[in-house]
């Protein structure tokens, strides 16, 4: 009988335990279900965010500021004429250029940069690049012609140490065509190439050059290229040479035989000599247009001149990046000398040089506030008989410029 009672007590105890355990199990099941639901939701979010090969982003830059300008023009035998201007925006120059980058895949990149310069809405470049193999990128479309380093690498406001551009580096500009580029190691050194085949340049009636545009002005094409060598293993020095050849005359015009050859050399040295970061850059361009006879202006007879232009700049900037003081380490001082000589006896001939002094404050790595003082001096060598203006032009300017990359 006692054993029966013990069995009854055991069954009752077990029932009690089960009765006590069931609500806990029910709560645990509900909690598991909630976690699973949350996990499923997170998995869906991850799936939505899954990075594919394709990726689109907007970067770009904007530059604006203020310039106070004093221009003195002195004609032969006459007193100087002074003109002063103060302008917002044209702090050489206002620019808003959002850059649209679309990575179609790991081998294909589309780049498009529209740009508003305060007057017009243009396009800086619009091209597609195929990364065909290590050291071989093939691009097509509208791109900066490979020549020197300034236009392609240094001209952006958030990169340039001084507010303005050196004169005479507009050519060869941006053009329509195809190109190849790449870089390779060479033992301790490194070398790179950047070549293109594009529509080319157009010779104007006064002997100046401009890009032919999307419809070529003749059947010839422009070949341009830059080759560079980085002789040190730490890439602190880059030496580049550039060359260009283009048919430039309009088909069927008197300039049919006109050709343009350009030669260039550039240097780029960046080295931290603790606590100072030393930055030296320079470039030399020479443009030679084959001898042509240009139509006379204002009933003057046709004329000819040696159509050779040259431009050069040398720039040094110093920044105490190793300084302990945060304000001091964000200060950079810069100086640039530039010269630009255009053909004597043309209507636009002049010998000019310019000195730019700058103090920059870097708010962060891609945002800069610049103050630049610029002095330029130009002596006209123009052909007065053809309508050229003789005289001396001096320009003093103070720039306050803000530039940011976004």
């Amino acid at each position, binding site marked *: 009988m006692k054993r029966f009672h013990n069995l009854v007590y055991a069954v009752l105890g077990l029932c009690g335990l089960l009765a006590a355990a069931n609500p806990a199990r029910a709560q645990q099941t509900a909690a598991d279900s909630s976690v699973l639901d949350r996990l499923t939701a997170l998995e869906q979010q991850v799936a939505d965010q899954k990075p594919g090969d394709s*990726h689109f982003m907007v970067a770009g830059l904007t530059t604006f500021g203020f310039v106070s300008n004093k221009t003195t023009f002195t004609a032969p035998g006459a007193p100087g004429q002074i003109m002063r201007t103060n302008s917002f925006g044209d702090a050489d120059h206002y620019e808003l250029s959002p850059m649209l980058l679309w990575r179609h895949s790991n081998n294909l990149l589309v780049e498009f940069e529209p740009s508003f310069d305060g007057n017009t809405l243009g396009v800086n470049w619009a091209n597609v690049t195929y990364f065909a193999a290590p050291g071989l990128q093939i691009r097509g479309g509208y791109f900066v012609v490979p020549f020197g380093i300034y236009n392609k690498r240094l001209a952006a406001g958030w990169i340039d140490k001084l507010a303005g551009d050196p004169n005479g580096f507009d050519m060869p500009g941006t053009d329509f065509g195809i190109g190849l*580029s790449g870089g390779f190691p060479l033992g301790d050194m490194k070398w790179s190439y950047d*070549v293109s085949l594009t529509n080319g340049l157009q010779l104007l009636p006064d002997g100046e050059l401009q890009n032919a545009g999307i419809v070529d002005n003749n059947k010839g094409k422009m070949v341009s290229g830059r080759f560079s060598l980085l002789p040190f293993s730490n890439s602190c020095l880059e030496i580049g040479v550039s060359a260009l050849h283009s048919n430039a005359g309009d088909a069927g015009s008197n300039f049919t035989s006109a050709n343009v*050859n350009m030669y260039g050399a550039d240097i780029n040295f960046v080295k931290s000599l603790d606590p100072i970061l030393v930055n030296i850059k320079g470039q030399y361009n020479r443009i*030679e247009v084959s001898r042509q006879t240009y139509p006379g202006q204002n009933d003057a007879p046709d004329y000819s001149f040696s159509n050779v232009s040259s431009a050069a700049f040398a720039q040094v900037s110093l920044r105490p990046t190793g300084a302990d003081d945060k304000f001091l380490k964000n200060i950079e001082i810069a100086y640039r000398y530039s010269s630009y000589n255009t053909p004597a006896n043309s209507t636009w001939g002049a010998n000019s040089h310019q000195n730019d002094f700058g103090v920059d404050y870097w708010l962060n790595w891609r945002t800069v506030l610049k103050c630049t003082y610029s002095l330029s001096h130009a002596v006209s060598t123009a052909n007065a008989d053809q309508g050229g203006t003789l005289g001396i032009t001096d320009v003093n300017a103070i720039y306050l410029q803000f530039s940011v990359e976004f």
Partner: protein
Amino acid sequence: MKRKIIPAKMWITMTGVFTVLLIVFGSCAENQKIAAKSGAQLWAENCQRCHNTPSPASFSHSQWVTIGMHMQTRAQLTDKERDKIVAFLQQ
């Protein structure tokens, strides 16, 4: 005196010769010292050739991949340099 102009055909020939040289030089291997460089070292050496060294926090992982391709077309980085720099910036 008429200036001698290099004909376009010669330029095209030179480009062809260069392409061959490209393939030949392309096989040039980097030495061990160069191959052992870290992404951080390459980031410091190459970015500041033109601009300040960027902060890794400035862009997302995907954006750095796209920007790496863009910068390779600008600065003619080697493929290994690009990949290492991007991997460093993604950290």
